[in-house]
């Protein structure tokens, strides 16, 4: 008979669907998010299939538009934004701070239902004909012209936004009010700092996209003139409101991944992180400065050149805290005793790909260069390096790192290493050629292109095929580990942190007795070069 833990404490569907345990809710999210990830991947596959040849032979132009729209909507709102916070954050934050649960367990469960409801709206929109506005829903096309299910999809985004708001609210209150005695702010794991910063973006940004989407719906349904120039409205105002949320939304995706990398790098270099407070504060700096850069999406859309200059400069500045993090992780790895387990492979992948994604972002933040590259595949490659190379690498790294904790089972390490390698190779083969073809002038969002661009697109499609194998592999060895995996000890990696001191999987209330913390939560052996420099 197994010891009682959160998985075997209660059986049957109702015990899962009505649970208030943050760990079970995390698993509910894991299942639903994985569904949307592969759905979004399916749309991506259709895009890559169409772009294999210069002619528009697989999809009509309109269907192609629907494919990239649904790909963007599903991946951004239903996978990337909830991914790490709702799954790993939900599972780990209470354990990492020595609490029994999040501050509002019922609200946490409601958040998941809201997410599912938003997902259903989006699925209905997809199945009943699809949306072709692009994931950005730009007006006046989305309010006046687009003859499709814009309202349904927009409502899906609106609804799922509340899931994001409530999750952020829950995290903020939990981190403020539920920390174990002695666990001061500067003893917190960096994963928790990253999620605190993420939650700030969630609660400050998401309401703005909510009201924006609501106004789009009001304009479309009630014919109120707000964004439609024919009715006296201003379409650029929509773009301002949209990007006021959607640029910071990139940080909702990347900040939690940075938190994951901070944990992995310490565990697999067996060293305390270099510059703890720099990494902690750079998360907050990214969250705050990230709200002041949205205008870099509107350089060519009728924004004053002086506003553009300001947004350009701030966009450069927001890269600084990200760079601080990358330097500090590198310094942490330096002279560490490194073990190349699969989570660390993802962390290395993150470091390289995020750096490329960040530096190419600077190209686009430069106003002059952006006029050339705006709406080309260079932009597509840039944000996929951040969102896929950064956020998904972090998500997969975190999933591999904490999988033994979540399930209590060990997965096949050789298979995981193979998958990490395939993801890295497949990703670069998919998206690096897009930098080149974008720089040469291939615009995004067309289903046809001149024949001279074909070689790049064939490389991309080949890479996407490899990438999808890399993404499918974990489905097999993770599921296999649940049934056949060896049981995991409490701390399979020799890592530090409160989550590694409770059993794997943890009991329902996490801690039999509330822990009293007397040191920082990451006490790896002091590094050797201390005192050398």
């Amino acid at each position: 008979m197994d010891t009682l833990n959160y998985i075997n404490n209660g059986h049957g569907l109702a015990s899962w669907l009505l649970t208030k345990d943050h760990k079970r809710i995390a698993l509910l999210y894991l299942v639903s998010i994985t569904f949307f990830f592969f759905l979004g991947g399916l749309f991506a596959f259709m895009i890559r299939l169409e772009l294999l040849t210069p002619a528009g032979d697989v999809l009509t132009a309109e269907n192609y538009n629907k494919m990239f729209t649904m790909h963007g909507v599903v991946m951004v709102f239903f996978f990337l934004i909830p991914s790490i916070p709702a799954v790993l954050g939900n599972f780990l934050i209470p354990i990492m701070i020595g609490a029994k649960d999040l501050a509002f367990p019922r609200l946490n469960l409601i958040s998941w239902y809201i997410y599912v409801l938003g997902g259903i709206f989006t699925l209905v929109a997809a199945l009943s004909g699809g949306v072709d506005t692009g994931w950005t829903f730009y007006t006046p096309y989305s309010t006046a012209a687009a003859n499709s299910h814009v309202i349904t999809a927009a409502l899906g985004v609106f609804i799922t936004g509340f899931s994001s708001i409530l999750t952020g609210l829950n995290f903020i209150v939990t981190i403020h009010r539920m920390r174990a005695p002695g666990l001061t702010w500067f003893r917190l794991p960096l994963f928790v700092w990253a999620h605190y910063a993420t939650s700030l973006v969630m609660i400050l940004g998401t309401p703005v996209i909510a009201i924006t989407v609501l106004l789009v719906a009001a304009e479309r349904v009630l014919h109120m003139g707000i964004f439609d120039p024919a009715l006296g409205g201003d379409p650029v105002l929509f773009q301002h409101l949209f990007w006021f949320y959607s640029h910071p939304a990139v940080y909702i995706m990347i900040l939690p991944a940075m938190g994951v990398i901070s944990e992995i790098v310490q565990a697999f270099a067996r060293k305390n992180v270099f510059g703890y407070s720099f990494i902690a504060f750079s998360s907050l700096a990214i969250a705050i400065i990230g709200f002041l850069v949205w205008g870099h999406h509107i350089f060519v859309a009728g924004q004053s050149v002086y506003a553009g200059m300001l947004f350009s400069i701030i966009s450069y500045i927001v890269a600084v805290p990200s760079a601080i993090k990358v330097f500090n992780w590198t310094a942490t790895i330096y002279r560490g005793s490194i073990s190349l387990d699969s989570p660390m492979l993802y962390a290395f992948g993150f470091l390289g790909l995020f750096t490329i994604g960040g530096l190419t972002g600077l190209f686009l933040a430069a106003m002059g260069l952006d006029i050339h590259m705006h709406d080309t595949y260079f932009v597509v490659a840039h944000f996929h390096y951040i969102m896929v190379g950064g956020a998904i690498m972090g998500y997969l790294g975190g999933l591999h790192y904490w999988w033994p904790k979540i399930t209590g089972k060990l997965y096949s390490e050789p298979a995981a290493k193979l998958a990490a390698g395939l993801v890295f190779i497949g990703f670069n083969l998919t998206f690096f050629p897009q930098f080149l073809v974008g720089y040469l002038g291939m615009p995004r969002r067309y289903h046809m292109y001149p024949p001279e661009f074909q070689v790049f697109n064939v490389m991309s499609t080949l890479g996407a095929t490899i990438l999808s194998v890399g993404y499918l592999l974990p489905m097999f060895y993770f599921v296999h580990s649940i049934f056949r995996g060896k049981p995991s000890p409490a701390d399979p990696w020799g890592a530090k942190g409160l989550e590694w001191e409770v059993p794997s999987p943890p009991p329902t209330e996490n801690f039999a007795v509330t822990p009293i913390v007397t040191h920082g939560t990451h006490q790896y052996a002091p590094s050797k070069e201390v005192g050398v420099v």
Partner: protein
Amino acid sequence: MSDGYPQAPSVGLPGRVSIQAPGNPHDEQSSAHPHHPKLQHHFDDMGQQAEASTLGMWVFLVTEIMFFGGLFLAYLVYRTQNPMAFQEASAHLSWKLGAFNTAVLIFSSLTMALAVRSAQTSESRGTQVFWLVTTMILGATFLGVKVIEYSEKFAHNNVPGPNFVWDGQYPAGAEIFYSLYFCMTGLHALHMVIGLGIMTVIAIMAWRRQFNTEYFTPVEITGLYWHFVDIVWIFLFPLLYLIGRHYGGH
């Protein structure tokens, strides 16, 4: 930061988590009521639970500010683009009804504060329910006036859309003004309706003698919400009703 230090004398975890005797000033206070029926399992004591709930409401109100902020931004942009039209359109709103509603809401904030105080000081359930119901009546009065105002606009076809009619100088700008007017006051009214719903639940709980000095957080955070909704109106009233005064309204 946290009030909720545990009473537990020891810890069963190895490593850096050390075993310490409780040395926390809050211990005595919290162990005085170790099993309050309203204490949820994941909180250490009532103080921690109350602090979590109030902080949660404050954070929620921050999201509300950002939510209404988008509308206020739109108002700012379009008023800058159509200053004359906004004055003309505003002059067609009845500032008297608006002022009356403002007074009603401010008064309802007072009765709400008294409701919180009556729960906090463990006054009789009759007193608690009286203040709550008075607040609800005032809220309903506000909504009733709003219905009168809206139906007057519908009767004159001043509602934006294909049938919008405007006999003034600036029909296009006026339509935008009324789009914003209906969006802003409509969302505000929706918040009031939600507030009335919450207060109904709270009043029933109060009648069942659930609130006293040890447990009144639900009343308190409902009060926070209600005050916020009032404050939004304090901004809406001058921006919508008063900017057209010198334009010669009625």
